């Protein structure tokens, strides 16, 4: 019987070694260790043995059984791992195939520029003010020190609807309206919006375009405050190493009036195509609010002073992104629009 047992063990171990997958190994388990298996049969057959042999034999059977079980489990671990590896192998995908597209749109480049400017000035305590695009001649011109017949009106050929109503030619009427509404109180606003002028559309002109203007009114507002504010703007918008310079200019609603240049962000001032070899790029117009404008809106120009500035988001977008034709902003070619997806932060 002992020989029989050894024989069984040898057989079982062979079968275990031969099993090539989990299923075959399970069959081996059932065949040798199962309730109907030969080892169980052996144990059952022990009753026929003399009583004194039973413990020895029992121990022997258990040893064999344990060994077979250990071997089997060891083999099982290996086969299971193989099975998993095989499954993983078969499940391998081509990770270079494209992902399922997530459609993402994006804002228009002009909105992008306007919002960037808005947020910058909001962080400096400005509010955003808006107003109608169809405006009264009074707010568009007269309240801004441009009475009827003023020569500077030639600068802005306008779309009139009636003699007194027109499409605003700049966002300045929002300033005039805000001043009137504030009744002599300090102001800090930024005014973005669409404006219209009688220009034929070409690469650098558009009968419709956008502007963003700022207005600060308070006690002791000085021209140096204008310069400091514009300097912060230039650095935030175009880079920390930007310098600004002011050049005298003329606007009917400011006195003194200036134009602001920034040092070229492409060449840093040494001269390139962007700055037309000058090292400087004209960005905006500004000035100290003309006393006539303050007085017309009910402000005491002796007590309160202010500054104003205005710029064209189209120009800024054209400079920043290297866009060569203003009409791109209004054609809505998706090959153009979708390029303004990613952040620049």
């Amino acid at each position, binding site marked *: 019987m002992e020989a029989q047992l050894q024989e069984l063990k040898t057989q079982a171990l062979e079968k275990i070694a031969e099993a090539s997958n989990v299923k075959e190994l399970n069959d081996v388990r059932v065949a040798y260790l199962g309730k109907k298996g030969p080892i169980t049969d052996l144990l059952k057959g022990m009753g026929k043995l003399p009583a004194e042999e039973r413990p020895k034999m029992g121990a022997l059977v258990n040893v064999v059984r344990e060994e077979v079980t250990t071997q089997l489990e060891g083999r099982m671990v290996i086969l299971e791992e193989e099975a998993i590896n095989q499954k993983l192998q078969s499940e391998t995908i081509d990770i270079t195939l494209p992902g399922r597209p997530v459609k993402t749109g994006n804002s228009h480049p002009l909105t992008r520029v306007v919002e960037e400017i808005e947020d910058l000035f909001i962080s400096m305590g400005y509010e955003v003010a808006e107003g109608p695009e169809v405006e009264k001649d009074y707010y568009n011109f007269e309240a801004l020190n441009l009475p009827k017949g003023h020569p500077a009106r030639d600068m802005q050929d306008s779309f009139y609807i009636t003699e007194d109503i027109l499409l605003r030619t700049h966002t300045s009427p929002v300033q005039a309206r805000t001043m009137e509404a504030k009744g002599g109180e300090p102001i800090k606003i930024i005014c973005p919006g669409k404006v219209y002028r009688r220009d034929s559309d070409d690469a650098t002109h558009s009968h419709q375009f956008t502007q963003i203007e700022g207005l600060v009114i308070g006690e002791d507002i000085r021209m140096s405050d204008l310069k400091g504010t514009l*300097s912060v703007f230039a650095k935030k918008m175009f880079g920390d190493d930007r310098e600004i310079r002011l050049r005298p200019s003329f606007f009917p609603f400011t006195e*003194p009036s200036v134009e602001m240049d920034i040092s070229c962000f492409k060449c840093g001032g040494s001269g390139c195509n962007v700055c037309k070899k000058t090292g400087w790029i004209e960005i905006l117009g500004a000035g100290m609010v003309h006393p006539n404008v303050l007085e017309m809106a009910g402000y005491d120009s002796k007590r309160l002073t202010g500054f104003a500035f205005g710029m064209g988001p189209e120009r800024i977008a054209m400079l920043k992104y290297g866009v060569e034709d203003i009409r791109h902003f209004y054609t809505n070619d998706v090959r153009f629009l979708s390029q303004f997806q990613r952040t620049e932060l």
Partner: protein
Amino acid sequence: MLVSINWLKDYVNTQQLPPAELGEKITRSGIEVDAVIDRSHGMTNIVVGYVESCVKHPEADKLSICQVNVGEEIAQIICGAPNIAAGQKVIVARPGATLPGDIKIKKAKLRGEESHGMICSLQELGIEGKLVPKAYAEGIYVLPEDAETGSDVITNFDLDDTVLELGLTPNRADAMSMLGVAYEVGAILSEEVQLPEISYKEASDTAASMLTLNVDAPEANPLYVAKVVRNIKVQESPMWLQQRLMAAGVRPHNNVVDVTNYILMEYGQPLHAFDYDALDSGNITVRHAKEGEMITTLDDAERKLSGHHLVITNGEKPVAIAGVMGGANSEVSDSTTTVVIESAYFASGSVRQTSKDHGLRSDASSRYEKGVDPNRVIPAAERAAQLLSELAGGEVLAGSVVFDELNKEERIVKVSPDFINSRLGMKIAFEDMLDILNRLKFNTAAVNGQLVISVPTRRQDIQIPEDVVEEIARLYGYDEIPATLPEAETTPGGLTPYQAKRRIARNLMEGAGLLQATTYSLTSEKSAKQFALEETETTRLLMPMSEERSILRQSLLPHLLESVTYNTARRMDSVALYETGSVFLKGDDELLNEQEHLAVAMTGLWLDNSWQGEKKPVDFFVLKGIVESLGNKLGVQLTFERGQMDDLHPGRTAFIMLDGQRIGVMGQLHPTEQKARDLKTTVVMELNLATLLNLETEALVYTPVPRYPSMSRDVALVLSKIVEAGTIETVIRNAGGKLLKDVRVFDLYEGDKMEEGKKSVAFSLTYFDPEKTLTDEEVINAHEKVMAALTEVGAELRS
């Protein structure tokens, strides 16, 4: 304004600054120099030649073979100009010369004949054709007889000059003259200004003996000076004068006209020369035109005049439109011997209106419009007399005929140094301020610590203390202004709820895959009302530039759809755009009712995941989902009602409703409209965004996360095809009681397994009690009520 630096040097020392540097200084202190133009264009080897002989080329009709003395030698040059002739002094580009446009002159053979150089026109020297005197416009330029053969043309004829092109702002009318620019440059460089010295011999006869003057409109013409010059010989002007005019952008005509133009440029004072004999009355009368009176102007146009147009007459009929253009009937011609020189002050408003009415803009009118210097009217007339006597051999009659009621006093502006410094945020010393005002030639006195400034009449733009602040600052240098920030108390700043929500709406649209577009507000009559949500009149511009851009839009969709077509025509088949912007409706008051709208247009595929076999074309429901998300994001309950609108598919159109009010429309384009726009299936939406954004949003308070499980029941119903799912959903919701938390359509079947005219819609109902776990019995009770209600409306359970 084009400023020749050589000419400028007559009046002010430019300290030999290189032109670009001078230009930069002028720009930095107030007048923008738009361009620095080198008139020599780097030309060399261009000399005066004498045409000794000139014969026709045997092989070419239009060419001549010339033997030209160029100083060192006689050169044979082939010339194609029609006006070439023996005995002329001409401009010769020798072999090796460079002409503008990088043209190099080489020896050449033309039809077998050698040519050693080129005889030049002025255009070939880089002068614009419209500035070349008419006599030479179609051929070579002929130099004066006394030009020295072989001498250098560039230096001898003032082409070694640089022109500064000034971009003048409307306030700087003073710089529309060489003298004005000289004062500006003098102030910048601290140099004195030399005015022209005027002296000439007068005849014993007086101007008054030949000419009488009446001014019947003293307000429009407060000053009129006339001088009479006789025995003049009308001919070509000397070279230097022609060159200066061409440098200033004026075409030379003859010595009389050229003198008036020269002084226009020099003094900024427009002058006009009348042929005295053609006046035929010995009288000048300035008056307003009679209604309907006619005049033929120098440009040969016949013009009808109105009562507010000021005219110069010979006492009877108009001979000039005052300050705008002369009349043909009194024009100076080659046979003129006596001229009347007019120098006058015409009120700017009158000239502006007249020049606008006639569409006539001249160098004269543009100066009058901005206001000429009252104190230069008389000197300019004297200067003209001088130059006519020098250049046209004229005899100037003694004195002038004058009407003068013009105030020529200087304006006084008082300002304190503190005011100046506090406006600028600077500490400029009093002495520095005085120095700047002296450089500007503003007579200034210091009275009780105040600057009392007498402003020269050439500077009409200096009127108030702030104007003085600017003068001081610009000449002190804007670079010297420190950079500070306002010292006032800080304010919070920020967006209004409306503005913040607009950004949220835009972000949602973009997150949903739409690109933001921007289209024009002006549109055509045809497009103005298409897709408009409200029925109101359209608004038209008084003077549109084109019919395409003549009316204010009432809907964003027509232009948005144009943008979609623009893209699909370029083979981008899937396009999804949105726009926010104003539409313009007739309002209650004179301003329009501007409403901010949001519009969407989509075509092509919504999802294109081809290699995984997923393709989803846009349809009504893709867009509806976006609108629903917008409502959720903005915290408003949007509902949809079947609707109709022109150019939308009658079965696929819905109105977007808010609290029973129609605020928008969405749908698929009508197939006819799609075809007209060359589009495939396209869905659109437009809603009144302002209404949505103006709503106050409720405070957000959280609902506890469910602690008990919910139970769901699915029902598949057979319905008549015309019954809408929304109707059934309402029936279910109404019958479901408070335990019914949600109803959702999860299947729709309209295939051929259904009976004719029927469809199957499956709903999933969710029951839930926040207080406890539901029992089967409770759910069965609630669900039975729902089933009963469904049976009542004729919905059968699908077997």
